[in-house]
């Protein structure tokens, strides 16, 4: 409400004002490109050329194939890393003893940057689906582990008491009481990790792996097609945005009201 009262000076509706900046920037770039961009340019591209390359790459299927390759690695890695992360996170969250004993090992492995694993995985499994998926899985494992551990710790104490009164075993306590009530918070971890998974998948493709959107972008660059490279950038942004929007929608529909 405060925002509404502060800005009665302009006649544009709120959602339109957010569009002003991108539209102005694109128009400005188009103008600059018309004025200064010669045919011997291999770095920049005019917005209309980027748009036409984007449409071309989308309609001939190149971009969709690349999107499939990137997303399949990102999602498979996220599934593996997420599953391991939730399992470890639940165990560490439920048992303070195990958590304390694993402390040094977890803290020693967690900060390893995923990019450092690229050479190692190149050596172990070569180019392809496996190396990329493994790196994504390793990267997404840690944030999901840490956040599920804290989600489990946030489970209401009364519920744990109920489990004790009902004389549940460890597995039953985890499956019936703790995990369902920690699920909304665990979903937040998954949402965060999805963004990380996409970033890491694209990074691995840019650095080493000859498949997917990141590689398409590198090839466009190295073959001096800046408009295509920018088209890939725009499309990667669209994919990231759509994934995020989809997860936000799921979150709002199923999980947000339980937090």
């Amino acid at each position, binding site marked *: 409400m405060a925002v509404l009262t502060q800005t009665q000076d302009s006649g544009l509706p709120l959602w339109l004002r957010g569009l002003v900046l991108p539209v102005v920037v694109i128009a400005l770039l188009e103008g600059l490109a018309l004025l200064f961009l010669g045919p011997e340019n291999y770095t920049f591209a005019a917005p209309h050329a980027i748009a036409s390359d984007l449409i071309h790459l989308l309609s001939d299927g190149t971009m969709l194939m690349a999107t499939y390759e990137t997303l399949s690695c990102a999602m498979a890695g996220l599934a593996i890393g997420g599953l391991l992360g939730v399992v470890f996170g639940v165990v560490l969250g439920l048992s303070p003893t195990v958590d304390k004993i694993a402390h040094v090992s977890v803290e020693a492995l967690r900060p390893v940057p995923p990019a450092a694993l690229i050479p190692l995985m190149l*050596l172990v499994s070569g180019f392809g689906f496996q190396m990329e998926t493994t790196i994504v899985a390793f990267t997404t494992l840690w944030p999901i582990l840490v956040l599920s551990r804290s989600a489990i710790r946030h489970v209401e104490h009364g519920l744990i008491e109920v489990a004790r009164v009902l004389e549940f075993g460890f597995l039953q306590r985890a499956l019936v009481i703790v995990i369902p009530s920690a699920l909304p918070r665990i979903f937040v971890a998954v949402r965060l990790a999805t963004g990380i998974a996409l970033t890491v998948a694209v990074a691995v493709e840019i650095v080493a792996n000859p498949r997917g959107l990141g590689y398409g972008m590198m090839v466009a660059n190295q073959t001096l097609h800046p408009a295509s490279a920018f088209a890939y950038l725009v499309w990667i942004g669209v994919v990231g945005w759509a994934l995020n929007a989809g997860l936000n929608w799921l979150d709002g529909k199923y999980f947000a009201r339980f937090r």
Partner: protein
Amino acid sequence: MLLHSSFYRLAWFIASLAFAACLILIWDRISAAGLVKPIFLPSPGKVWTALVAGMWDGSLLRATLITTARTLGGWLIASLIGIVLGAVIGLSAKARIYIGPTLEALRPLPVASLVPILIALMGYSEQMVLSVVAIGALWPTLLNTVSGFQAVEPRLYEVAQVLRMRRHDVLIKIALPSALPEIIAGMRVGLTVSLILVVVGEILGSRPGLGYTILLAQRTFHTADLFAGIAILGLIGFVTASLLNMIEHKLVYWKH
């Protein structure tokens, strides 16, 4: 009582060190039994020898210093730009309305995808690596600063108005401390991103540093050197994050 609890903490720490030692022992047994080819998984002893030898002849030490300097340098540039820009956007209702939606739309863009664009702009140069780091690590700090300044309790501003505080004082004494926890949280993510992007930049740009060291080790099948490099990169991540935690405890003392 205090002595008691710190004794317990130490005991648990030693137990968890022992557990880590057990894992390393299992790793050692696996490689000794030849379950995995040594070219894929060298024994921990070999990795340690490679690490010590690299540190001793200076090559690994130099690479470590360069990579650490790049990480911190790029991260500091990114944090500074992020905080200043974020404060400007977060404090002005107009800027939030006009710039906010664009920032939100760009938030899920994977930063790594900017690397090819920057390579096209600057070539395989030192500036390219630093720009990749600075631009990539900028986002988390920028976005958190915006939302940190936005979330300042409006009554605090009313108090400032009643006290007739100057704009500058309002910024330093009220807005900044109140947004600080969120800013530091953003800077922490930025630090992780920096280290990743430094390695990416070094590998792509063939700049001297740990990223390039491990790439060379892989190409020449010196797996022990590769593992030593990965271990040091993990250590850099751990030490820098711990330092930032310490600084946070000092700066945001009221939250702990």
